[in-house]
């Protein structure tokens, strides 16, 4: 199978990640941070090593500021539901995933409101103006994606973060699609909360996510429970990471995530990005030469996009194309709305969604070329089918 569904989760994973998951499960599978025996301490060290690695990677001094979560959605919910109180207002971008939009919609019944600021592709000034105009006197939090998971567009998050500082608003970056591809430092870039998936550009296993807290405003967790610390106190410990990490952690997943981050750091985010954006441009260029293919958001640019290409075939639903790619050519892509209906409104693709092809560091140029050939064949196939259908109607 040729795998272009890396926007959902990267596949394959580096061998070091697979090995770490297997070895941890086989040899060090004790509960970390709970007991005092050697294997439990070894397991705790695995967790700590990943915490430290992630802290360095995301530019925070203290490993305590790194909180492990089951996924990016959980991290975003922790921030949104932990920071906002009754009467507060939030601003989000028009490219947000449902991981951001749905918690805010849910909070409406608790007296919390939000506004959506339009991201204008290719016009950062207008985008900033839109964010500025959306801010109200009771705006407490601004959540913005590092890049659209549908169209790859990158809002000017550095400037948005700086604007938040001026207005005294907390800034949360959804780095689901950018972590491991676009370098970021919570300290240098003025990010109060960074939420990332561990299993996408960081090449860790599914079931891993990270929340990096770089603010004095520490949200209360969504979950309270055992932390292996301060057990006599029925109140949740206030200090990070225990405040936001209850219950047995995903040891094997975190061991894999640690190796995933090491893999990315060793290769270099810039190098990974350069390779992937070049492949995405090759794909975009190939598709743009085919009559009947509709492309969105412009050619992926080095400073304006992440390696995500969304397209449609004129007159056909995106799911139909994805199914043909899978059934006839053994190619994996994702179709539909990609859990981001807000983003589709900007491009009028809410009804039929888009076919999304996302490369990874393991993708080869030949696979891109083959993909383009397959899309050509699908268009010919579909036009023949239309001709036959028309004939039978005439009969």
């Amino acid at each position, binding site marked *: 199978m040729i795998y272009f569904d890396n926007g959902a989760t990267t596949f394959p994973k580096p061998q070091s990640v697979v090995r770490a998951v297997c070895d941890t499960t086989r040899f060090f599978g004790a509960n970390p*941070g709970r007991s005092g025996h050697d294997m439990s301490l070894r397991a705790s060290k695995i967790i700590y090593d990943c915490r430290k690695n992630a802290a360095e990677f995301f530019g925070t001094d203290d490993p305590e500021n790194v909180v492990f979560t089951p996924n990016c959605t959980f991290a975003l919910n922790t921030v949104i539901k932990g920071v906002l109180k009754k009467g507060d207002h939030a601003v989000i971008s028009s490219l947000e995933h449902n991981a951001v939009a749905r918690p805010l919609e849910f909070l409406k019944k608790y007296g919390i409101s939000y506004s959506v600021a339009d991201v204008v592709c290719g016009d950062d000034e207008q985008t900033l103006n839109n964010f500025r105009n959306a801010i109200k006197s009771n705006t407490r939090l601004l959540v913005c994606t590092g890049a659209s998971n549908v169209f790859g567009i990158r809002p000017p998050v550095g400037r948005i973060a700086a604007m938040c500082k001026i207005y005294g608003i907390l800034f949360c970056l959804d780095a689901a699609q950018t972590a491991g591809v676009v370098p970021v430092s919570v300290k240098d870039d003025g990010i109060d909360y960074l939420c990332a998936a561990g299993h996408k550009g960081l090449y860790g296993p599914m079931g891993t996510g990270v929340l990096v807290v770089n603010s004095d405003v520490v949200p209360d967790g969504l979950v309270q429970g055992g932390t*292996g610390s301060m057990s006599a106190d029925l109140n949740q410990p206030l200090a990070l990471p225990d405040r936001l990490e209850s219950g047995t952690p995903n040891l094997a997943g975190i061991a894999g995530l640690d190796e995933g981050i090491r893999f990315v750091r060793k290769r270099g985010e810039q190098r990974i990005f350069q390779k992937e954006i070049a492949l995405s441009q090759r794909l975009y260029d190939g598709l743009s030469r085919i009559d009947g293919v509709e492309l969105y958001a412009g050619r992926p640019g080095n400073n304006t996009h992440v390696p995500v290409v969304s397209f449609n075939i004129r007159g056909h639903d995106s799911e139909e194309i994805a199914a043909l790619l899978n059934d006839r050519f053994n190619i994996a892509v994702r179709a539909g709305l990609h859990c981001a209906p807000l983003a589709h409104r900007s491009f009028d693709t809410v009804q039929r969604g888009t076919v999304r092809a996302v490369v990874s560091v393991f993708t080869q140029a030949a696979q891109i070329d083959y993909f383009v050939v397959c899309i050509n064949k699908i268009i010919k196939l579909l036009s023949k089918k239309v001709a036959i259908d028309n004939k039978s109607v005439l009969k």
Partner: protein
Amino acid sequence: MENIITFASMTNAMRAKEALNKSRIYSRLIRTPARLRKGSCGYSLVVKSRFSQACGLIKELNIPYKEMIGDDAP
């Protein structure tokens, strides 16, 4: 008497142990002994030598700790 530094969380204890290691101060990570637990559980570092230096380093790095107990405790 053993020189012990107690911590509320495993992460704090791990961070302190790592900092001490870098300064070549040997320490051993243990569950906090019953007599020091005060009804709560946590982790501690047993520091064999250069205890006052170890305590100073942990304070300097602002690593949260609960107690420093030993002959040379500051």
